[in-house]
């Protein structure tokens, strides 16, 4: 197959009439960076959570490098251990330090011995430039710092792919930059990423493909330039115009 992650005909409905994922199929290859964007409430986050096997799908299949995750009897925990997920609201473990947050899964999921886990955790924190803060608790860190630790936590167990759900949306504007910088570094290293985000400048710079997602379905895909210059669909056009107008005002 060659792709890192793939989904076929995914469906997810909430409460009988809210279709968050409507027959969605897509794939992402090694080293690729794809960015999903679209109006709020369109189901993008739900789609990403389904891919991460955090939310069960109603129908359809998800593949992680040839292994079908939606088949019966699959060890979901092991699968999730091969996927790195970054939450919009960060969700750091509040009772642990930054180091503790990154270490926890290394010790109890990857079952690494103590000093190896610590080494690996420190490495991950170094990658996101948070090594100095390893002994701080989440409440002692700013939002941007917390999210960077969140990224480290997801990276530490060497996932095949990173899924990021609006990693900067919950942060104050001044704090977004540090997270974007971190993601840019990751992109340079060739990490495979599927990101849901509104950070258009970042998308333009780093994404190989952008996916416009609206009302539960993929409406249009294409390289960033395509969307910024001449999107095809009406909805995409409208969305991009509004977005550009907003950035012009700022």
């Amino acid at each position, binding site marked *: 197959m060659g792709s890192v992650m793939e989904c076929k005909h995914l469906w997810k409905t909430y409460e009988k009439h809210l279709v968050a994922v409507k027959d969605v199929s897509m794939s992402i290859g090694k080293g690729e960076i794809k960015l999903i964007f679209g109006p709020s409430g369109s189901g993008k986050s739900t789609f990403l959570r389904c891919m991460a096997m955090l939310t069960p799908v109603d129908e359809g299949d998800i593949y992680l490098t040839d292994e079908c995750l939606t088949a019966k009897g699959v060890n979901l*925990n092991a699968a999730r251990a091969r996927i790195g*997920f970054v939450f919009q609201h960060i*969700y750091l*473990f509040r*009772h642990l330090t930054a180091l503790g947050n990154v270490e*926890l899964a290394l010790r109890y*999921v990857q079952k690494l011995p103590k000093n190896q886990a610590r080494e690996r955790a420190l490495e991950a924190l170094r990658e996101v430039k948070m090594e100095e803060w390893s002994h701080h608790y989440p409440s002692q860190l700013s939002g941007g710092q917390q999210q960077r630790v969140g990224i480290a936590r997801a990276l530490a167990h060497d996932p095949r792919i990173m899924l990021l759900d609006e990693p900067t949306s919950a942060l104050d504007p001044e704090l977004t930059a540090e997270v974007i910088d971190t993601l840019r570094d990751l992109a340079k290293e060739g990490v495979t990423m599927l990101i849901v985000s509104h950070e258009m400048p970042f998308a333009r710079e780093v994404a190989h493909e952008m996916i416009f997602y609206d009302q539960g379905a993929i409406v249009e895909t294409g390289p960033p330039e395509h969307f910024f210059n001449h999107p095809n669909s009406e909805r995409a056009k409208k969305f991009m115009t509004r977005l550009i107008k907003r950035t012009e005002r700022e």
Partner: protein
Amino acid sequence: MFEFLGPYLPTIADGLVLTLEVTVFGLFAGLGLGTLLALGDIYGGRVTSSVIRVYVEFFRGSPLIIQLILAQYAVPALLPLRYPPLVTAFTVFALNSAAYQKGYIKGALQTVAQDQMDAGLSVGMSGKQTLWHVILPQAFRIVIPAWTNEFCSLTKSTSALGFVGFMDLTGAGRSIVGSEYIVLPAWIIIAAIYLAWITAFTKIADIVYEKKKIPGLEISPV
């Protein structure tokens, strides 16, 4: 005023020991059982929840004295078991405390639970692992003030033992009969002992909490 109490002091001291034993046992046993009840209520499904609800209503809605009497008489009648009465008493306090502790443990678990569960799952931990390594550690810190409160409540409620024939601190008091020169001072001393114990414990608990707390997991005033 207190000179005549001399001969009674051993009884009072022994009573205090029993009171403390029952309190500590009830508190910790209640914590463990209460946690199980809270988990059962959250993750257990409808039938379990209903059963737990009846259990909690019974122990919170009826006086402790009645629970003690029922336990002493109903248990031998229903089950072919014979326990020394003290065992029954300890058990009743554990069950009673569990009913109260379940309430705030459940609250703490629910406060912590959803997002932290997702976070745990996202790094590959199983639900059980997340519960054990992430959710419970946080929940237990959140319940500390309510727990020290429960300690005080429990200490006071052990007083019921003195009315069903046990020689706890209150039982010791009831056994002291005679002239007013003995009875009033005795009760004043006993009241003072309860008061001193509870005040001291609360102070110590506050100090320990200050030292051991984790920044960010402070509790909002209940």
